């Protein structure tokens, strides 16, 4: 529920400040701990065998996909297992057992040593190859990171993203009476979802930033999620419509293509894709969102969308805003053939 009570809002805001301070403090402590761990690792105060054994114990029950599971961590496990010991333990609980085992071991040792030596050699070679690979991947990642384009951002534009904006009426009119599921990204504080739900539309929203305290999202099904990941996790053909606002302006060409491709895949036959965008001129103006200076992207000109959505198989039209600062693109998926 989005709170209209200023008292509640103030209390929530003060709690948010406290929570932000707690997180910042945690970050500081974590940074100090990381420095100390690095310092001790280089000092070599822990015997390598013991460290390997303990790390192996840690990794034994860690999910491979978990955070912090790097190739280097996995290699520690490989390194710990490359040597195959041919000297079989001979302890026994039975009388004479040890002597018998010792005899068998002596008889077989030349053979076992020959085999295990080759297996160990092979494992060592594989481990070395993986270490080389790890070094190369790490180096490559460093270079890629240096070249990386900043991730796309959802922009929140006060004059364009509010319940009384001209395009909100167009979108709600377009989607009223639809029975299927409708996604709005980035949903902000839920201004469009609320309007759609009020008209009986089964709408939900996603925003990468927590614009209002999470718990107040519930009754409207608004979620804090990465938009591209969300769209990628939507079942094919499961949506009646996707509305994108504040999303495409700040995303690069590849991200934009991926996002649009995912959104179109999520639409069922006859589905609608609605894209609200600032114009390039508004993006360049003084009252543009600060993200305009920070991302290597600019909005398309309205007519570009006809071709972009046409390539994705949609029939597109553009409605320009009253003062030329923004526009709404409507793309339709062909209905199911009879």
């Amino acid at each position: 529920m989005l709170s209209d009570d200023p008292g509640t809002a103030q209390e929530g805001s003060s709690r948010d400040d406290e929570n932000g301070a707690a997180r910042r403090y945690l970050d500081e402590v974590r940074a100090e701990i990381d420095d100390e761990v690095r310092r001790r690792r280089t000092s070599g105060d822990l015997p390598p065998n013991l460290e390997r054994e303990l790390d192996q114990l840690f990794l034994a029950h860690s999910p491979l996909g978990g955070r912090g599971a790097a190739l280097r961590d996995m290699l520690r496990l490989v390194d710990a297992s490359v040597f195959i010991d041919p000297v079989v333990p001979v302890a026994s609980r039975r009388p004479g057992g040890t002597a018998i085992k010792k005899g068998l071991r002596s008889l077989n040792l030349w053979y076992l040593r020959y085999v295990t030596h080759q297996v160990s050699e092979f494992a060592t070679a594989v481990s070395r190859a993986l270490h080389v690979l790890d070094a190369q991947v790490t180096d490559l990642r460093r270079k890629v990171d240096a070249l990386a384009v900043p991730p796309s951002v959802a922009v929140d534009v006060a004059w364009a993203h509010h319940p009384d904006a001209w395009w909100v009426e167009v979108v709600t009119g377009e989607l009223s009476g639809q029975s299927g599921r409708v996604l709005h990204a980035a949903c902000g504080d839920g201004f469009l979802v609320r309007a759609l739900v009020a008209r009986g539309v089964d709408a939900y929203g996603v925003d990468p930033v927590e614009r209002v305290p999470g718990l107040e999202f519930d009754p409207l099904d608004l979620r804090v999620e990465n938009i591209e990941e969300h769209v990628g996790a939507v079942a094919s053909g499961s949506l009646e419509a996707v509305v994108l606002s504040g999303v495409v302006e700040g995303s690069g060409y590849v991200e934009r293509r991926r996002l649009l491709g995912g959104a179109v895949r999520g639409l069922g036959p006859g589905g609608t894709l609605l894209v609200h965008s600032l114009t390039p001129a508004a993006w360049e103006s003084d009252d543009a969102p600060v993200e305009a200076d920070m991302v290597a992207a600019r909005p398309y000109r309205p007519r570009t969308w006809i071709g972009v959505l046409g390539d994705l198989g949609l029939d597109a039209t553009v409605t320009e805003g009253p003062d030329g600062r923004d526009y709404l693109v409507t793309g339709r998926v062909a209905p199911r053939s009879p």
Partner: protein
Amino acid sequence: MKVAFVTPRYGAEVMGGAESAARQLAEHLVAEVGAQVEVFSTCALDHITWDNVLPPGDSVFNGVTVHRFASTSGRVPEFYELDARLRMAPAEASLEQARLWLEFNGPVTPDLVEALRHSDAEVIAFYPYLYYPTVLGMEAATAPRVLHPAAHDEPALYLKVFDATFSGADAICYHTAAERRLVQRRHRVAQLPQIELGLGVSPVIEGGRSGGDVLGIGDRPYVVSVGRVDDHKGSSMLAAFFRTYKKRNPGPLALALVGPVTASIPPHGDIVLTGAVSEADKCDIVRDAEVSISPSALESFSLVVLEAWELSVPVMVNAACDPTREHCERSGGGLWFGSYREFEVVLQRLCADPGLRTRLGRSGHDYVDRYYQWPELISRYARFLTAVRGRYEAARA
């Protein structure tokens, strides 16, 4: 509203994250919202054998009507060989192999599934995703189905037999955002109505003794780890880390492992194994601990972390466990370790700095107070279930 829960084990004797969570939600729905709640479960207490030890039939427990059905088979010996074979590349296993895995894992409960077909519940909640009653029950249910996956990053999540379980749900209830991300990386279910709920923390019941007295270690400072003492829960790893820590950092610090013991922990003068303890003793022990440690990498929520924060005790968690780490990051109430090195540095820092402990404990307490109090949490859940039912009826109309 009439709500049904489907869970493979049910009862006060059951120690298990998902099953306990189902029971708590069921009982709080009855007590705080006045909902009519029934549970479909088995006669088993043991999640490995699934032996039928409780009598089948109907009973009422804390206001909840419980229907128990005997299983026709539990986990069979062939399970282990198949599991070992499939867990290397679970996503590559065929649907037939995955179905076999599900049946071999048990509990196979055709009577429970049949009973679900005739349930007059308005909404049915399935908890967790992993077992036969959920997979087959979801196919049979005629009311809207809410899936509580209680998923963590385990090989079974990638088996094809669960694809229809996730995609067939009418709504999903997650413990944490981390669980949602995990599920959505594997299953395309983002468009389904969903909620991040978690569980509430019950009021503290203190016994009035000092934690050291309960543990029999007097005034010695100690750290605590609460929960099943089990290899899979990271208990052996924690014990080994602590033994090494004590060798390198001599002093009075002790480790208390509080919970039923299934792992083999070598005896050590600084490690206390309590076995199962009463709620009051547990509270006394946790309240006086320097730090509460959750060593498990496989948690989908971890109530023990929140219970420590309820008592303003800071926590240390396994860095590879996304949900517990997310709790720490969001609250600022705890630190995490991803190796022995980190374990040592974090524990030294926490033990040496009372100001840090106080601050983390307070942040954790605020987090629990804000998000995980039963009355608010159960109201959210009830609203969510009502919305799921409303959406289902609208679609039918």
